């Protein structure tokens, strides 16, 4: 699809927030929202979340019901001031993360940067072996279809809807 055309404050939210609230919908039509670490794949204009193969409910839901939502409403840890709250509604595609695409290295690096204590964990071969399932992951790509923005995180206000536009 190419890069998304986004206001800088929204792009900063995608890049800097440590968690998002990611929703899938199960077979019964029940929404299920969990805090999830997001990754913004800027060149492809998509958001990526991953989950361990040990806990794949999000994956099964997204395969069955590809309409998902990603809310960025908790700025804890993000080096931003007065960050907006952003809701992305998008279409999900799913792939097992086995072939090490270049962005997966960037995502790994970003994740360790956000959780510095995890560096010693991933550097320990025994820990990696015991927790192999943590590193066997499935990626859920979210292609934005609708983006709503609440300036300064003020959800009392009516949100601004951004046109989802890709850079030519």
């Amino acid at each position, binding site marked *: 699809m190419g890069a998304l055309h986004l206001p800088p404050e929204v792009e900063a939210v995608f890049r800097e927030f*440590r*968690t998002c*609230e990611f*929703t*899938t*919908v199960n077979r*019964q*039509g*029940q*929404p*299920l*929202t*969990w*805090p999830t670490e997001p990754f913004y794949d800027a060149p492809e204009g998509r958001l990526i979340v991953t989950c*361990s*193969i*040990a*806990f*794949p409910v999000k994956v099964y839901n997204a395969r069955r019901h590809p*309409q*998902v*939502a990603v*809310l960025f*409403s*908790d700025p*804890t*840890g993000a080096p931003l001031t007065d960050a907006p*709250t952003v*809701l992305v*509604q998008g279409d999900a595609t799913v792939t097992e993360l*086995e*072939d*090490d695409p270049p962005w997966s*290295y960037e995502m*790994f*690096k970003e994740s*360790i940067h*956000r*959780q*510095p*204590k*995890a*560096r010693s964990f*991933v*550097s320990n071969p025994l820990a*990696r072996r*015991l*927790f*192999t*399932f*943590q*590193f*066997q992951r499935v990626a859920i790509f979210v292609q934005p279809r*609708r983006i709503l923005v*609440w300036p300064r995180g003020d*959800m*009392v*206000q*009516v*949100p601004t809807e951004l046109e989802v536009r890709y850079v030519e």
Partner: protein
Amino acid sequence: MWNKALIACARTYPSGVLTVVEDSGYPRSVRCLVEFDDARELILISIPSLEVVGRQGLACLLFHRHNVDMSGQRELLIKGELHEEAGNLVLHPGDFLTGSGRQDTDRMPYAGSPMDIIRYMMLGRRKAREYLAKRGKPWTPRPWGKMLRYLDTP
């Protein structure tokens, strides 16, 4: 069913994230204030943005937090049905879910005791084996050398 221990956890959060599913099929989430009615075993939702008011049906309410370095993670999800009652939005709770599977705390395993971590490891290994058995082939080993070297690239 009303879970007193997890409701006590939920009370420690300043706000929660309510999610409904729009007619389009897309989920819609909003951060909101909530009040807990122990007598009626209901959760009253105060929606600052009026957009989800009137949307009744299946919904969920998430509470979560973490420290700036992502330690101390806690998460709790309440599944339920959203109703409008006398002009108020009310969540009738169904299941209470936590990231650790426990029904007495919202603390994630890594934020817990060594025993919590061991339980989590055993559960994760068992579940991963089930996934791989269904898949019918093993997972390709991770290229750890390359991955760790990448951490130090500028």
